[in-house]
């Protein structure tokens, strides 16, 4: 065991020291991500017990990966708000909704804006609506933040939760433009055709996954730019001690608002990508549970670290989807009869229960998240030592 850890340390140490090596590894890894949705990739490798079970047989792998990537985008956006600026936001999915609905309303020929309100005559192309979606999401971030950022901590959580609920309920009302549960069908797709003339972006999730993955990479770099600047320092200072930050000349309100706006904009991108793929948008998607899931993603991965947010976003989608197929792969029974009652024990049906167990277990053993910011990990070590010492004295 120690030989393995030793090797691990030597390898990681090497990558930590050598910059070209690190970049090389990242490039290879990204290339790997782009080929990931190809089923043939697994069949080619064909290592039973390792690769095949990782391929989700219960759901389309490309779709699962696409869902992962838009969730990762959301997690990255929320990480700015929760991880860096330290603002607990339980209604983050609202911005996703803003992005998705903007795209749907503007690109669908069945949008009420066209059929009933005559705002414009024909649908816009998807690409045109994306910047508008981002702008509107950003604006809604500011509009939400303006009144609510006065309250702090857990109170902010409930205010943001309320905001997401309000958006959902408004969306639910059929009489308004969003058309409620009936939703908006025939949402536009991104442009582009294959050489043979069929559109690239239609129902196949693979191109969307590649597009979303590209967006994730762009978002990571842009957010990284922010984090390593005055803005990022201001956010962390606010998270650490808001009053002290303000007394040191940080315009806290403005930067908190920026955090909200940036997070919201990233959420909006995610929503517009999703709407393009899903082809149909209705109010049922935007439940509070989803906001909570994204928050779980950020904290599971490790708040305040982009790699952690990515890992978390991936896991919260992938694990339940994988559990869907794992029963088939390993041939587990689906029901158990206890006292004349059929208990449904298939992993498919219990996948969220398993997922809950996973959340608990991870948090017990790694409370700072799976892949925390290095400093947070150090802090956690300190805190544990403090406890040990404290107990020794008491």
């Amino acid at each position, binding site marked *: 065991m120690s030989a393995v850890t030793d090797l691990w340390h030597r390898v990681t140490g090497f990558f930590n020291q050598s910059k070209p090596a690190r970049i090389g590894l990242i490039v290879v890894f990204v290339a790997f991500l782009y080929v990931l949705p190809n089923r043939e990739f697994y069949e080619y490798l064909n290592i039973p017990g390792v690769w095949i079970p990782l391929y989700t047989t219960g759901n389309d792998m490309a779709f699962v990966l696409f869902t992962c990537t838009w969730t990762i985008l959301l997690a990255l956006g929320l990480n700015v708000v929760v991880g860096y600026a330290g603002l607990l936001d339980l209604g983050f999915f609202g911005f996703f909704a803003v992005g998705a609905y903007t795209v749907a309303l503007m690109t669908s020929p069945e949008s009420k804006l066209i059929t009933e309100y005559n705002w414009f005559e024909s649908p816009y192309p998807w690409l045109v609506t994306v910047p508008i979606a981002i702008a509107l999401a950003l604006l809604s971030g500011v509009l939400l933040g303006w009144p609510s950022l006065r309250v702090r901590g857990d109170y902010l959580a409930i205010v943001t939760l309320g905001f997401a*609920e309000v958006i959902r309920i408004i969306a639910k009302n059929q009489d308004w433009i969003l058309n409620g549960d009936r939703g908006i069908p025939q949402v536009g797709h991104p442009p582009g055709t294959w050489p043979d003339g069929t559109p690239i972006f239609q129902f196949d999730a693979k191109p969307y996954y590649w597009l979303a993955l590209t967006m994730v990479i762009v978002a990571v770099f842009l957010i990284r730019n922010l984090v390593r600047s005055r803005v990022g320092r201001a956010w962390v200072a606010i998270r650490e001690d808001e009053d002290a930050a303000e007394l040191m000349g940080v315009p806290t309100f403005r930067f908190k608002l920026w955090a909200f706006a940036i997070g919201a904009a990233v959420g909006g991108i995610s929503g517009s990508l999703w709407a393009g793929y899903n082809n149909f948008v209705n109010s049922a998607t935007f439940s509070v549970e989803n906001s909570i899931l994204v928050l779980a993603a950020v904290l599971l991965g490790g708040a305040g670290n982009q790699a952690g947010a990515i890992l978390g976003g991936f896991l919260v989608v992938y694990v339940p989807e994988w559990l869907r197929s794992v029963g088939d792969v390993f041939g587990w029974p689906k029901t158990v009869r206890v006292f004349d009652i059929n208990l449904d024990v298939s992993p498919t049906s219990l996948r969220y229960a398993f997922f809950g167990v996973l959340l608990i277990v991870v948090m017990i053993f790694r409370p700072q998240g799976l892949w925390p910011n290095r400093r947070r990990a150090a802090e956690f070590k300190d805190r544990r030592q403090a406890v040990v010492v404290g107990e020794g004295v*008491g």
Partner: protein
Amino acid sequence: MHFDDLVNGFPNLTTTGLTQGAIYALIALGYTLVYGVLRLINFAHSEVFMFGTFGAMWTWGWLGFGSTSGRPGLGTAIMLIALGLVVAAVVSGATAVVVELVAYRPLRRRNAPPLAFLITAIGASFVLMELMGAATGRIQFGMPPLLPSNPVINVGGWRITPLQLATFVVALVVMFALDTFVQKTRFGRGIRAVAQDANTAALMGVNKGKVIALVFLLGGLLAGVAAVFHNMKTGNTRFNVGFLIGLKAFAAAVLGGIGNLRGALVGGLLLGLVESYGSALFGSNWTNVIAFVVLVVLLMFRPTGLLGESLGRARA
């Protein structure tokens, strides 16, 4: 806007709002107690409540009172309700304590950051809800009719049913008992001491672990009481019944000032009333919008809720 609905129904809307508010308040107390002591939003509390609804229902079913059976006599009904209250309180209390032991205690021992607790709470909530869902086939269950529906008071269209009266009276009695318990007894002093300063309390010989378990237990017991009245009021339960009502109760706790016992009562009743009037005025589908708008506006002006936080110290 339907002002006529509001005006015509005002007395009855008030009664239903207060009844619903009392149920919110009972659940809100669970959030508030835990929050007051641990600064932790116990997201799994909604599932603690849901377990209580099933506990009571199964007890009644075991005694032969299912949804399709006839209404029993008043004496039997009161016995059944009392029994339901005991069982639901025990089931909910036990669930709450188990959640504490499994999902929170290990984290506390490791001095984990507060947000980690939030995630285990969400995890515990998933586990409890999905397990119950799988066990019950995710279908809905009806409750036996227990109390008669003819009103005890009927003055010019203003009706109070026995159930509404019972809900309100029992909720008030329970909350009064809790308040006395926290203010007057040794355990209560322990709770307040830990809420104010956990470390000092520990130095003064208060067993922090026990106090925390006690707080979860108390919250669970109250949720159990709420569960029985919810059963009788809505006449049904299912595995995901806790989520929405838990959310509302949490909002009620925040409204009153989370961590403040009397705040939970005030917040619960106020939320019940606001929802009742609001849904008459704008339509039931806008209930949640109204509730949250009121909450947000209130928090703008009183950032720590109506009564502020009082179980422990004010937030740093």
